[in-house]
């Protein structure tokens, strides 16, 4: 009925103005649309970050609706947040069904693949769209590809593991080879689906596409995090590597970080360690992560888009006191997901699943992590975000600090996380949060690092020399970021 009246008024050519009038008169008082969330909210920081991201997005959206900057309806998540117990597909499945029964029109969240996979049989039958904001397994989009009509209700805001590997090849060429003068790399990968696929792809492409040789590749079992022997093998003079690319999705990187530091391994570490995206990682490793660079969705401190920095500030102000005290990647993706969903609901003028899917497919939204458009059904990875400089890319984030001794730095105040690749995101925020490029400064630091390495090689590669040079590079980057 309400819809009809609005359509009728619109047909009279009164448009948006009437909407406001209708709102004042109480015509526009639609009930809020229910959104559900499923994630490991109790056990893991990634789960907590999801809820916090969602909470901030909800408040902002509803305020915009109140201020008439967005059309109704509002969104609500009251009583619609469920824990999936991290790994339990059966629990996630029951949770999804319950949320749908309770009237949730769209469900967001999901962290470990098995839990998300558990939802799929019910998703295909209940048809309430699910926007995945946490996993990177590529089998989900393969599923959408294999039976589009059945699984089209599935969307994702994360880059999948294959795309991450592609991005790594680009980073190796641009950052490692061109900027830092790396010729050979050693790969240290965990023996998991992610690690093996990552390893295979890098071995195939690094030489041909980035011109960098793989000097040594190591696959270690997930439950054996002892790296002394492994690190010794790759820092052998005969191997002659210039850097390490780690690939850990499941395995904690903490022992790896600790042992590279104890051994003062003469190799910079630039790669993917999922756990290392959390701000608390500095504290967990006691500052030994200084100088490591990992792929991430966003850091917050770096104003990637006009939305990144304000979100970061709002988050830190509100939740800075308890972990995750800075937004983790799932906070960014979940925050964006709700805005994307809201826009799709507005365009679809309702919540009919098939209409929503159509509108979600038309998404073009500049979020906190970049510009989001979903790939269409003919793509290799349907309903994954588009990848590229104009869309979403991985950001390579360097852990650093201005403090003299990283081991004694204050883990709450001193750590800095600086995007060092891609070049367009080598930014810092001024007091108003506007981006200022620090590309020149970082390039200069990279030049200094190259010179130091040449010098170190001339001296016969004394132990710990390149380690110190890399730490110096990290410190210079921290200075660039501080603007001094």
């Amino acid at each position, binding site marked *: 009925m309400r819809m009809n009246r609005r359509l009728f008024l619109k047909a009279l050519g009164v448009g948006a103005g009437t909407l406001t009038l209708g709102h004042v008169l109480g015509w526009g008082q639609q009930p809020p649309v229910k959104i559900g969330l499923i994630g490991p909210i109790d056990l893991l*920081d990634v789960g907590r970050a999801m809820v916090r991201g969602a909470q901030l997005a909800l408040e902002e959206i509803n305020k915009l609706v109140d201020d008439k900057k967005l059309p109704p309806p509002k969104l609500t998540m009251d009583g619609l947040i469920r824990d999936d117990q991290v790994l339990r597909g059966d629990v996630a499945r029951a949770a999804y069904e319950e949320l749908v029964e309770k009237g949730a029109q769209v469900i967001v969240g999901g962290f470990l693949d098995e839990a998300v996979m558990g939802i799929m049989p019910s998703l295909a039958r209940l048809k309430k769209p699910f926007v995945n904001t946490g996993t990177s397994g590529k089998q989900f989009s393969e599923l959408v590809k294999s039976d589009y009509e059945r699984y089209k209700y599935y969307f994702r805001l994360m880059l999948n593991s294959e795309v991450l590997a592609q991005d790594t090849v680009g980073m190796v060429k641009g950052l490692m080879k061109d900027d830092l003068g790396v010729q050979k790399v050693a790969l240290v990968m965990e*023996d998991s689906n992610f690690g093996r696929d990552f390893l295979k792809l890098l071995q195939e492409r690094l030489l041909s596409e980035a011109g960098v040789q793989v000097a040594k590749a190591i696959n270690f*079992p997930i439950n054996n995090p002892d790296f*002394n022997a492994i690190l010794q093998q790759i820092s052998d003079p005969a191997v002659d590597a210039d850097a390490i690319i780690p690939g850990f999705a499941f395995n*904690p990187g903490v022992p790896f970080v600790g042992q590279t530091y104890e*051994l003062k391994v003469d190799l910079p570490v630039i790669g993917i360690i999922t756990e290392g995206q959390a701000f608390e990682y500095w504290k*967990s490793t*006691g500052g*030994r992560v200084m100088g490591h660079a990992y792929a991430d969705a966003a850091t917050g401190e770096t104003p990637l888009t006009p939305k990144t920095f304000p979100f970061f500030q709002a988050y830190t102000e509100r939740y800075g006191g308890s972990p995750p005290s800075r937004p983790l990647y799932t906070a960014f993706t979940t925050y964006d997901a709700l805005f994307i969903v809201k826009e799709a609901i507005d365009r679809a003028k309702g919540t009919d699943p098939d209409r929503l899917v159509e509108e979600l497919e038309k998404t073009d939204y500049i979020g906190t992590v970049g510009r989001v458009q979903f790939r269409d059904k003919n793509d290799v990875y349907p309903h994954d975000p588009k990848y590229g400089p104009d869309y979403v890319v991985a950001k390579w984030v360097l852990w650093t600090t201005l403090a003299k001794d990283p081991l004694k730095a204050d883990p709450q105040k001193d750590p800095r996380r600086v995007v060092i690749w891609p070049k367009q995101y080598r930014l810092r925020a001024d007091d108003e949060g506007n981006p200022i490029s620090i590309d020149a400064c970082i390039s200069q630091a990279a030049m200094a690092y190259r010179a130091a390495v040449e010098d170190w090689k001339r001296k016969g590669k004394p132990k710990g020399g390149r380690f110190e040079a890399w730490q110096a590079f990290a410190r210079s980057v921290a200075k660039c970021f501080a603007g001094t």
Partner: protein
Amino acid sequence: MDQVLIIAERIVIYSVLISALYALVALGFTLIFGVGRVLNLAHGAFLMIGAYTAWFAQQYLHWNLYSAFALAVAICTVFGVIFYHGLVRHVQRSPIVTLIATLACALIIEELIKIFFTTNTQLLAPFVSGSVEIHKTTVITNRIIAFGASWLAIILFWIFVHRTRWGKVILATAQDQDGAALVGIDVKRVYTLTWAISGALAGIAGFFFASWVKLDPFMWRDPLIISFAIVVVGGLGSLKGSIVAAYLIGLLEVLMTYSPSVRICAADLRCFEFLGSSWVGVSSLLVLIAILFIKPEGLFGRAQE
């Protein structure tokens, strides 16, 4: 040739170091079984308590590492005694209930640590930072300290058992409980003592295990499985067997890290690796199963009655 020698050298050094820690981890476990015929599935959790105590003292109370270490050992000792009197003593008669109850305790401790310290992985700062060169092998300094501490603990324990009065009482009880009771030994006190020692050993092992790798609420599983494996291979209750088995298992694991792998592929290009570093862990499990089937009492075990 040179390269082969270097690799051999590294295999020897690394396996000697890690095995000492394994032996220490298993020591408390085998002691409890040897004396009281109790399989303490919470042994790994004992280690975890030690590790988290030290970490907590260091991170939150800002104690120095030595006092944190001492506190960890003390807490574990006390916990061992409480554990015996509060739980094990009452269920000891039924091996089934003991197994389940000790396992439940381990899970309870895991849960408590999750609640109070989250599931995040942490690092315990080492006694001495940095690394040393032994010939052509680089070793993290902390591991040499762990190696030394392990052997010191093992030797002290051995001296205690074989050279002191209380040690002999423990040995007598281990051999024949009823006989010991007959000659006037207070078996309950002997048990209390062994649980205290087992707790202390677990505290030391937990501290070094955590600074060797990491701390997290699931860290009790690996030491428990290692203890199991070692104790079964060596023979349940045999101290000498445990040490030999620790060295066997340590060597096997390090060997796997270095062993070349063979890639075996099917016609459809699906492949798997045979041996190599991804077999660390699985190889010792397979050896363990084999030994259990061939010689169930273990290498140095007393035959089953």
